[in-house]
């Protein structure tokens, strides 16, 4: 049947299983919004306050569901406002399709009103992008975008559609949802080699990352750890794959990881990296990372092998496929001496924060929070100290319950991400943990949660400073607090009320508990302004470029 470009876009999105998109209208997307108006029963459009919020919401939706998130913006500033959100998704390998309108093809290249070359701008922050110049290409381009976004190592794809393409008509031939069936051939030789290295190792450790979450390989990983008695440590992107309550889990590894994990990596004779990339936040000093270990790297992306660290052996595969194939080759083993050594490090070296109920210490805040929100709750964070504390003291038991910008470190990510998660799961508790610095970046999105009755609970760890940068200034810049003291007078209770939400201010754990119980009953957004001390630090810490010898723990 003959359809316009805008109708084809809607049809193809529905065909790809999309029922929700996040966006913001504008001149170049008028035709698309007209089609959305007529199809509002098939696709739910969430209108954000700013396109950046739409991009983060699509990202959060994707992180929470595992499906491809979709955002839509107009040309020019609408498109450039998506850029930070697209880059955030790219760095964390999140499947996303960003659709931008552009000026008509006859106006392209003439510096027309609201024209930018968004395909050029997003080239280095997308897996791929398209400019659709003919309506006949539109349907297949959208299908390709969904395939690219979700296949292999996932990531964002941008489709730029000039306005005249959205009004032009052509024959539309329906097709099915793009199904991705990828197989990574892992050879017997590869499996025997890795199993052999495990069998010979006396001090093995597994270091895993977001690839385990993406492949949903937590159960297989835990089985390998238990069978071969291998402790593991993880990146911020892999929170929830295996609960940190698991005795074999050493928790986070890297700049703010546990001391026992850092020593286990340092002394290991075999380090198996699964679905992680030896980033500078983990391998703080790449030349001295796991210096005594043979390193095995399992990753779906061949380009990650030998990128940051030269490895001894590698297998290109998704984590689930590899682990399931490996398990039959691995014998039951015990590493009692190694485990005892790690337990000793844990007992004597791991950082234990001190409780004090009269104030709000971050670890107590998180403990109280997790006690009250239950196992199903989704936590989204911004970036800074609050994010690191949230990661350190997380109690996630499942994947896709902790949404954070790990790679790009985007302040202002959290609120949009929380909205995406809450839209995807209206019945679950969604908590946005933020700092007063991050929250100010995109707090405009409060209006969106009010409009759509999204009962997101925002916990503001309010220390009136840019705490993480300030911590570096304390430790490495002689306490010269350049532009990190905020001196802001924002009244978060009034702010929440001005937007149509509810706000609380709390200064101790009892007040926090009371505010949370109120917030959990509400149908709209709540802000909880939690006053914490500005000198609270994220500990332990390995400074950038440092090693286990440089750990700061008090």
């Amino acid at each position, binding site marked *: 049947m003959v359809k316009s470009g805008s109708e084809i876009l809607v049809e193809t999105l529905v065909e790809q299983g999309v029922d929700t998109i996040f966006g913001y209208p504008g001149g170049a997307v008028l035709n698309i919004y007209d089609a959305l108006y007529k199809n509002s029963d098939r696709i739910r459009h969430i209108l954000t306050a700013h396109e950046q919020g739409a991009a983060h919401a699509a990202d959060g939706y994707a992180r929470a569901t595992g499906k491809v998130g979709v955002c839509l913006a107009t040309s020019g500033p609408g498109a450039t406002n998506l850029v930070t959100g697209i880059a955030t998704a790219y760095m964390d390998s999140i499947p996303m399709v960003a659709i931008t309108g552009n000026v008509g093809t006859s106006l392209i290249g003439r510096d027309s009103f609201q024209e930018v070359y968004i395909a050029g701008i997003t080239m*280095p922050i997308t897996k*791929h992008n398209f400019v659709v110049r003919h309506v006949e290409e539109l349907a297949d381009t959208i299908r390709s975008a969904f395939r690219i976004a979700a296949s292999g190592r996932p990531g964002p794809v941008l489709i730029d559609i000039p306005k005249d393409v959205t009004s032009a008509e052509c024959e539309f031939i329906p097709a099915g949802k793009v199904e991705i069936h990828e197989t990574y051939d892992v050879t017997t030789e590869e499996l025997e080699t890795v199993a052999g290295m495990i069998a010979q190792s006396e001090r093995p450790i597994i270091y895993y990352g977001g690839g385990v979450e993406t492949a949903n390989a937590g159960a297989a990983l835990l089985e390998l750890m238990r069978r071969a008695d291998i402790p593991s440590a993880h990146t911020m992107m892999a929170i929830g794959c295996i609960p940190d309550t698991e005795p074999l889990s050493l928790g986070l590894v890297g700049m703010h990881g546990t001391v026992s994990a850092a020593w286990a990596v340092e002394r290991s004779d075999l380090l198996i990296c699964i679905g992680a990339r030896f980033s500078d936040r983990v391998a703080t000093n790449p030349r001295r990372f796991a210096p005594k270990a043979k390193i095995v790297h399992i990753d779906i992306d061949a380009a990650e092998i*030998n990128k940051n660290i030269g490895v001894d052996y590698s297998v290109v595969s998704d984590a689930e496929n590899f682990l399931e194939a490996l398990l039959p080759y691995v014998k039951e083993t015990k590493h009692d001496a190694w485990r005892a050594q790690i337990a000793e490090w844990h007992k004597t070296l791991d950082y234990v924060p001190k409780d004090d109920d009269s104030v709000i210490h971050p670890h107590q805040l998180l403990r109280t929070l997790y006690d009250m929100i239950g196992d199903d709750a989704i936590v989204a964070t911004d970036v800074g100290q609050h994010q690191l504390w949230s990661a350190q003291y997380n109690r996630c038991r499942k994947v896709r319950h902790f949404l954070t910008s790990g790679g790009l470190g985007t302040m202002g990510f959290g609120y949009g991400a929380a909205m995406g998660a809450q839209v995807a799961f209206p019945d679950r508790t969604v908590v946005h943990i933020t700092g007063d610095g991050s929250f100010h970046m995109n707090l405009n999105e409060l209006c969106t949660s009010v409009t759509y009755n999204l009962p997101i609970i925002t916990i503001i760890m309010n220390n009136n400073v840019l705490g993480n940068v300030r911590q570096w200034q304390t430790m490495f810049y002689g306490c010269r607090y350049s532009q990190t003291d905020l001196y802001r007078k924002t009244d978060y209770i009034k702010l929440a009320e001005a937007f149509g939400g509810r706000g609380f201010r709390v200064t101790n754990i009892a007040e926090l508990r009371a505010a949370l119980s109120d917030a959990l009953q509400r149908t709209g957004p709540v802000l909880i302004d939690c006053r914490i001390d500005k000198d609270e630090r994220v500990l332990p810490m390995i400074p950038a470029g440092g090693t286990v010898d440089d750990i700061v723990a008090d």
Partner: protein
Amino acid sequence: MEKYILSVTVQNNAGVLARVSSLFGRRGYNIDSLTVSATTDPKISRMSIIVQGDEPILEQIIKQLLKLEEVQRVDHLQEDESCCSELVFVKLRAENGSERDSIRQLCDLYDAHIVESTGQMMIVELSEVPSRIDAFLDVISNFEVVEMSRSGVTAIEK
């Protein structure tokens, strides 16, 4: 730093050159030369890229190129197992007869052609492997070189 020859087949789409050069820029890889040309299939173009680096950088460049949607194939060509050639034009100022004779002799020696000769200027052309071109440019620099233009290498596996 070694030099490597890569032959990259790409889909002949608008923007594919920008995508490849953006990748090199972003990752900080050094390109010595890059040529793009048609193949027998109008949908496919060939890029011949000379890159500088070491083995780990070469491995990364190849893998990163293969991640681009429009890149179909990347071959690392060895100079002795492939045909590779580059074209150079050199414009020289040569006003007296003895200079012109010396240039002619040099051209004969390297199989270069004199494509233009006026009262004061000569333009010579040479198509050769890059190392021979380097050598030719080295000796021709004893004369007064006004301008020089190299095409970049194009290559094909034997």
